């Protein structure tokens, strides 16, 4: 492991990669800060740029963007009560009241220190957990992988759908359908290409991500008439107050950070759960841990109330890399985007990544830690200046996002068809978003589609067409049981809320 860490450090500390971490964190902070634009959009916008670099550098840039965007999301939550990402909603519960009390600088500093601490602790966990899990996952077979992918999709659908499990499952199926367009990987038989050469290679992953996130988010902001810059005017962005944290506050944070980090990391590792659930759970847990007089302060600017979700959401970000790097199965929408980008580089993440590409494996882990340091050193002092971006009017912001999306696809294919297809998918995604159809399950399914079919093919061929592979091995049975429990839980919740609606 020491050797691996040294390899990782050597790669991550090269001048080019250090620059990439800095650029990534900075760009991520800016994009993540804009309400409505989260880490997925930030990473999606970066993908075409990363293809110009080697895989390790590209992935380091994306990891920097990821952390930067999460940090940026907290900034908009605290300053204008408009969380850039769902993972920072809980941050606004106590961060915004603090900002209203004239302590915006302090709130931002607490968020930054908590993020740093949460990220650091979970990076250490990742350092220990990833190689061990890699070794264990070498014993996984095709049926287990197939089961794990179904579990990932079901879990993401269950957790990201806010009570609309069926909608999320429909989005999963749509993602898998989009992934099935193009030539069959084994027989090269064209499927759903409608005799056009433009579809014979399938639909580009970058195109789908850009269309369903960057572009459709921009269109949703326009159609709903939200103007982030109007919200920014409510609080002074020029005078944020002191960023110093006193002894008492540090003491309070010191108790909160370890438990929230552990919780965040564990939740992050679970498929589908991610930063949003981690932050809410940490907020709830912290409220139960503190004394009754402190409990009263929750929701009114409590230090622990701000520190707990911030620590947990950053810890969950590191945790979500565990299934991606060790099993090759992303646990969240954001890591699904990263998996797609990795596949674009010709790298297959999974247990063998640890052996075949140790430089990538370790440099990503090490760059996460460096990313945390960069965020703290670079972004915290710059926050008063970066925060002014929140006041950029949407009349300039939206066309820029659309421009970067179209250009990203144009530079990859030099093809009008792809641009039209992207616009078409973006329009459909915008309509679906208006009616609360979640997009992360679609992306996760799109990325996993090919792998899922491959593993199902292998499993069915080995078992001679019988579905008994689902209960032949104890591990597969455990995975299938978990899926069954998640589905049952969702059905129970649905029936409960239908009954409630009928009573009302």
């Amino acid at each position, binding site marked *: 492991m020491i050797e691996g860490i040294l390899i990782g450090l050597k790669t991550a500390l090269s001048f080019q990669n250090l620059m990439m971490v800095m650029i990534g964190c900075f760009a991520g902070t800016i994009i993540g800060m804009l309400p409505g634009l989260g880490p997925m959009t930030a990473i999606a916008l970066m993908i075409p740029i990363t293809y110009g670099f080697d895989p390790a550098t590209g992935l380091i840039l994306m990891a920097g963007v990821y952390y930067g965007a999460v940090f940026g999301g907290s900034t908009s939550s605290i300053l204008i009560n408009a969380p850039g990402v769902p993972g920072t909603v809980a941050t606004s519960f106590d961060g915004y009241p603090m900002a209203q009390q004239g302590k915006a600088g302090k709130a931002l500093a607490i968020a930054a220190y908590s993020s740093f601490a949460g990220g650091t602790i979970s990076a250490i966990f990742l350092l220990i957990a990833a190689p061990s899990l890699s070794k264990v996952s070498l014993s996984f077979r095709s049926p287990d992988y197939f089961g794990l992918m179904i579990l990932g999709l079901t879990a993401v659908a269950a957790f990201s759908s806010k009570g609309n499990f069926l909608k999320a499952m429909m989005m999963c199926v749509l993602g898998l359908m989009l992934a099935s367009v193009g030539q069959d990987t084994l027989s090269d038989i064209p499927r759903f290409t409608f005799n056009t050469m433009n579809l014979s290679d399938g639909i580009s992953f970058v195109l789908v991500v850009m269309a369903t996130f960057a572009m459709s988010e921009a269109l949703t902001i326009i159609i709903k008439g939200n103007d982030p810059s109007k919200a920014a005017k409510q609080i002074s962005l020029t005078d944020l107050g002191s960023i110093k944290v006193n002894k008492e506050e540090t003491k309070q944070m010191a108790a909160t950070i370890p438990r929230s980090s552990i919780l965040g990391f564990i939740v992050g590792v679970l498929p589908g759960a991610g930063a949003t659930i981690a932050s809410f759970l940490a907020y709830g847990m912290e409220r139960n841990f503190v004394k009754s007089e402190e409990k009263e302060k929750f929701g009114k600017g409590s230090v622990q109330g701000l520190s707990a979700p911030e620590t947990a959401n950053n810890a969950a970000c590191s945790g979500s890399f565990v299934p991606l790097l060790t099993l090759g199965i992303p646990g969240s929408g954001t890591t699904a985007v990263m998996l797609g980008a990795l596949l674009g580089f010709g790298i297959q993440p999974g247990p063998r990544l640890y052996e075949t590409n140790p430089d990538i494996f370790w440099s990503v882990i090490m760059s996460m830690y460096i990313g945390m340091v960069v965020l703290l050193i670079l972004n915290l002092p710059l926050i008063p200046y970066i925060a002014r971006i929140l006041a950029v009017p949407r009349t300039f912001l939206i066309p820029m996002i659309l421009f970067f999306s179209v250009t990203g696809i144009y530079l990859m294919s030099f093809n009008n068809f792809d641009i039209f297809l992207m616009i078409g998918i973006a329009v459909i995604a915008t309509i679906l978003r208006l009616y609360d159809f979640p997009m992360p399950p679609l992306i996760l399914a799109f990325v996993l589609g090919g792998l899922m079919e491959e593993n199902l093919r292998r499993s069915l*061929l080995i078992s001679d067409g019988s579905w008994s592979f689902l209960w032949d091995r104890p591990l597969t049975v455990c995975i299938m049981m978990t899926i069954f429990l998640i589905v049952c839980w969702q059905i129970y919740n649905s029936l409960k809320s239908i009954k409630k609606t009928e009573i009302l």
Partner: protein
Amino acid sequence: MKINSVKIISLLFFVLSAFYLYTAHQIQVFAFDENAPFNAKTFPIYLGYAGMFFSGLKIVLPDQKPIEVDPKYLEFRKTILLVLTMIVYGATILKVGFFLSTSLFLVFSYYFLGERRWKYIIIFSFPFVAIFMYLLHGILAVYLRDPLLKYIGIMG
């Protein structure tokens, strides 16, 4: 059962899944693969059924939290104009070239979204695209097709 927009979307999804299933059955597989436990159309067929199953359930089951979007509060005009501008941009980017089509796309988009400060509109279109192109083409050596600039002799 109340008909609402989500039910209509689910119905459309059901029709899409049925069409997908029909197309999946039409996939031509090799003769020796026809009776194999898994061939090129097996997975799409399962997907077609899954799509019909989930959308069918969504249509039949009552809504937990019905969502109705009031068209009064939606800015259709701006959105449609922006989408049309993007389509024109996509259609002209190869023929007219990156510089002019992108700059005009930005000018029209800013204008359609309500921006009237021409100084900023101009700064964030033509010079902005020129700098962007210089960074991409000049520094990062990313190929950018631009017949117009090539004709004028600015780009090689």
